[in-house]
């Protein structure tokens, strides 16, 4: 309960998509806070709305079909949802930068590395091309890319996936943003490269003090990087806690399921089968009566199907979960 307002305060955010079959509520009543230098992980399956949340923060939801329908996004006291597109452009890449899941397709194939890193620098810091190029080189050194001078004039197709992701990170950090949104930064990479990129992000966090909003489905990544974790299901936040609390005593069956699906360290793929959560993410076309996870939940009782649980504070002061049976989960006997 510090008096200082958080760096980013998202309140009651709602995002809808118009489709041929009706309106999809991709994100509902979504709230979170992010302090300077903090790393918050948003965890969920694909289709849960976690990437929508990241794009909404950047105001990069394609409209149409998407629309931010409710809520506010306070960044340094300003509501991003009330800014003009031009004001938003000044913010994007400069204050809030983003790295994406697919490094190979996220770099423009017809522009050189120097051009792609340098253009954001030129745009936001109003420097000339030579200075932007110098900055690009600096950034490539920061992300520990081999032979940085040579890389400047190369094209993405001449780089490997891991190298592309380093370039992406260099690009995102070139204007020293206060918030870095990382959408599945390691998912598309080989396991060994994944570890290297995680180390790099960790290192950057320590050195630059950038706040990170980490979007992932991988609790291994969360354990490595995050300070706090927020679990999202069917467009709603269902649990939020400091990382250790969440990993050790989850209070929502869905989180428990995700933990079961997390490969243990040292386990090879052949020896341990991942516990999968049965069923699929429900359609967000119609309003869901009760808890959205109930149909897949082995703990579900009658009340879960009729009445939607609200977020309630759990034992730990910063631990919230939206489950009728969260107290039962606290004693792992059931």
């Amino acid at each position: 309960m510090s008096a200082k307002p958080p760096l980013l305060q998202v309140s009651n955010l709602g995002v809808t998509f118009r489709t041929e079959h009706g309106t999809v509520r991709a994100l509902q009543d979504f709230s979170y806070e992010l302090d300077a230098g903090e790393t918050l992980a948003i965890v969920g399956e694909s289709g849960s709305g976690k990437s929508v949340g990241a794009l909404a923060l950047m105001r990069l939801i394609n409209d149409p079909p998407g629309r931010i329908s409710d809520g506010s996004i306070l960044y340094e006291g300003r509501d991003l949802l009330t800014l003009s597109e031009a004001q938003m452009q000044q913010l994007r890449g400069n204050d809030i930068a983003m790295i994406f899941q697919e490094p190979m397709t996220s770099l423009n194939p017809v522009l050189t590395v120097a051009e792609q890193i340098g253009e954001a620098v030129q745009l936001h810091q109003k420097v000339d091309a030579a200075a932007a190029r110098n900055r690009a080189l600096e950034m490539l050194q920061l992300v520990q890319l081999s032979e940085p001078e040579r890389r400047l004039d190369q094209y993405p197709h001449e780089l490997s996936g891991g190298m592309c992701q380093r370039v992406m990170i260099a690009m995102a950090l070139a204007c020293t943003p206060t918030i870095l949104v990382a959408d599945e930064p390691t998912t598309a990479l080989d396991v060994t490269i994944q570890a290297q990129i995680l180390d790099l992000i960790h290192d950057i966090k320590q050195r630059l003090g950038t706040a990170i909003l980490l979007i992932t489905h991988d609790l291994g990544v969360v354990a490595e990087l995050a300070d706090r974790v927020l679990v999202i299901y069917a467009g709603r936040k269902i649990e939020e806690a400091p990382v250790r609390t969440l990993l050790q005593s989850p209070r929502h069956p869905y989180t428990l399921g995700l933990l079961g699906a997390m490969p243990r360290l040292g386990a090879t793929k052949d020896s341990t089968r991942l516990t999968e959560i049965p069923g699929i993410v429900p359609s967000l076309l119609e309003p869901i009566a009760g808890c959205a996870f109930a149909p897949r939940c082995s703990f579900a009782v009658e009340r879960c199907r009729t009445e939607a649980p609200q977020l309630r504070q759990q034992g730990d002061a910063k631990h919230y979960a939206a489950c009728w049976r969260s107290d039962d989960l606290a004693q792992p006997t059931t």
Partner: protein
Amino acid sequence: MLAFTMRRLLATVPVMAIVAIIVFSLLYLTPGDPAAVLAGEQATAADIERLRIALGLDQPFLTRFGQWIGGVVQGDLGTSVFSRRPVMDLIIQRLEPTIALTVASLLIAVAIALPLGIIAAWRSGGIVDRVAMSFAVLGFSVPVFVLSYLLIMLFSVELKILPVQGYVPIAYGIGPFLSHLILPALSLGIVNAALIARITRAAMLEVLNQDYIRVARAKGLSVRKVLLKHALKNAAVPIVTVIGISFALLISGVVVTETVFNIPGLGRLTVDAILRRDYPVIQGVILVFSATYVVVNLLVDLSYGLFDPRIKY
């Protein structure tokens, strides 16, 4: 790059050779007696015979082809049956208006089509998109001469701000040159713009769905910059390809437009040759136009490397 250019240049030789063979063989392959058809209905047997000798139809195919191709390689396209002047001279005389018309039409087409296609793709499904694509289908469907007459009716007959027809060489002043050129170039340009706009839209649509477009937006670039710097360069290859292809449309259009606007260019030369049954001239014009088309598409091929670094020579 140089080696690639040379290779591509050499690859056009067989295509040109085949074009030459086709154009030449038509005289021999068509059923009936081409000399009799070309001489016209009132011709006497002696007239037909004279024409047969003038066209070289009295000689064996290979002998005649050898002579003809030997001449073509040296720039001798034969002699007009009507004016008895070398076809090459007739063509060179008529070159300026046609080049002016073609270049102007192409510029107009690209100037209309690119913005239209880009905006239609960016706002796909929106009003601009629908209007632009309706315009494109209409552009395919309205013949050049109908459009030409509509434009003449509007700008020359009703508004009286542009001349009805004719051509003024550029040497006689840029003002009169342009005022005579603008309507024909506009008619031809609009029709070609339809095709180019459609392909531009399709190519841009594909590119705009790519991840790197969203990344560029996330960097804080304006929509304009994203479209023109990041998207257009990626969509460039299909667009320049269709511009090359549209050149064929342009050539057909030149023949018609020059007729409507009474422009003394190659198209007009063709139409006069048709009326006078002057086959050597028709043959020569076809060769020149086809060669130009092949060269334009060669240039298009060579330009790919400028837009896409992944294309290796």
